[in-house]
């Protein structure tokens, strides 16, 4: 039976550690003259992106290509989806062409889970609605481990639009598995219902949390998912929850600043901070390729998957 990566909660501590260790070896490929491994030769990976994405799609494409898989990029625009084809029919069509894995990004929470019930190949969730984005959480954990040397006991603060953030949800689940302590900071209107049940602390006061943090992860305010006003004005949001130069001065010396991108400079993060020495934003992008190579190898490289859910 094929296995999938649908949620960060699919991963045990052993699975997650195996992915991060494998990614560390995959990372050496980008320094070589021949940036390619023969491992997934003859396998086909479909990038099925129903939602706009630059970095995740490119990252998955590059990861699959560096492992010598054949990659088909499928964007919803200009496809039969705009003629009314359902997700199920699209998936079955692609499968009939003999694909081994589907990487899916969709605006519906749960679309990858549905897809996993339909197709025989492996399904990798590349972000579904406001639900999950497990490979982003993995690359964030990889970056933290690379910069700070450990994950166990790290104090990670995630700031911003938790309500709409699949990155936050996946990070909370994965970091919990890996032994880090997560604090969520947001205005009450941008916290999801039932956040008390998440394995994380909640605070409304960014300035109180910053001096204790090893990692500060800023999230974009996802205006495209907002029907109504969740806060009075962008300026007020930025003043209370934005990471500016003054706030960064209150961080510990070793603390790092992360952002999953795309970021809105001047809103949740000041330009000086995004480009500053503590910022790992570029590292996150390049680590994303290594982590996705590790995931694809562990899902597709053998007779059966080494990670993920049934």
């Amino acid at each position, binding site marked *: 039976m094929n296995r999938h990566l649908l949620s960060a909660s699919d991963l045990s501590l052993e699975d997650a550690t195996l992915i991060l260790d494998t990614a560390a070896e995959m990372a050496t490929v980008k320094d070589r003259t021949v940036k390619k*491994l023969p491992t997934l030769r003859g396998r086909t990976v479909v990038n099925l992106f129903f939602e706009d994405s630059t970095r995740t799609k490119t990252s998955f494409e590059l990861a699959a290509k560096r492992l010598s898989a054949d990659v088909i990029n499928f964007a919803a625009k200009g496809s039969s989806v705009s003629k009314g084809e359902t997700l199920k029919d699209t998936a079955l069509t692609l499968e009939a062409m003999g694909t081994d894995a589907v990487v899916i990004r969709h605006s519906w929470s749960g679309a990858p889970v549905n897809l996993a019930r339909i197709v025989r190949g492996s399904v990798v969730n590349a972000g579904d609605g406001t639900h999950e984005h497990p490979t982003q959480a993995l690359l964030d954990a990889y970056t933290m481990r690379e910069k700070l040397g450990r994950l166990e006991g790290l104090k990670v603060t995630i700031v911003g639009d938790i309500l709409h953030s699949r990155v936050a949800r996946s990070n909370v689940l994965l970091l919990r598995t890996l032994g880090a302590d997560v604090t969520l900071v947001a205005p009450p209107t941008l916290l999801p219902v039932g956040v008390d049940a998440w394995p994380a602390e909640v605070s409304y006061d960014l300035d109180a949390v910053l001096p204790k943090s090893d990692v500060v992860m800023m999230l974009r305010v996802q205006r495209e998912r907002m029907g109504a006003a969740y806060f009075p004005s962008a300026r007020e949001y930025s003043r209370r929850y934005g990471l500016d130069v003054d706030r960064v001065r209150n961080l510990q010396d070793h603390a790092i600043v992360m952002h999953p991108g795309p970021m809105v400079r001047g809103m949740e993060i000041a330009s000086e901070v995004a480009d500053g020495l503590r910022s790992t934003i570029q590292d996150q992008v390049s680590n994303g390729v290594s982590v996705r190579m590790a995931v694809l190898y562990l899902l597709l*490289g053998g007779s059966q*998957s080494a990670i993920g859910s049934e």
Partner: protein
Amino acid sequence: MTSAPRPVTGDPSSARSVLDAAALARVVDRMAHEVLEKTGGASDVVLLGIPTRGVHLARRLAARIEAFEGRPVPSGSLDTTLYRDDLRLKSPRALETTDLPVDGIDGKLVVLVDDVLFSGRTVRAALDALADLGRPRVVQLAVLVDRGHRELPIRADYVGKNVPTSLRETIHVQMSEIDGADGVLLGPAGGPA
């Protein structure tokens, strides 16, 4: 084939010692001399061990060559996992480290080092991996034990000991860095091949 840590299976008392610690040390000394002889002083030699025990063997060979000639010989490790031809036959394995000397392998005489030469498939994977990492001037192969049963046209340039085996027997190379003691054991027939 030989890189993963293996517990001795079956009845350990029926495993026969092929090399004890002292004999293994003498074999490594002889192989170091042979490398020096055959490469005319090992001036551009790079020793690349195949994980896990091959890496330790490469380090020991490098240390002995340095002791004999007074000149350091670079050594490193070369993981072959992602180049194996049997990847699809089992669950994906964890990767080992690939760690090349800082000067790289271009134009060098690379000696691949492994503990046991069996089917030759690991060496084939190593040759493919090498080709993606650079272009050595010459590639040679050094193994502690050649147990026969080649499935590919591959032979070793330096052999510590030839041990004729049946396919059902097992060879356990033990190195103190991993196993706590040095030695080579020939396991009983019926163990995993």
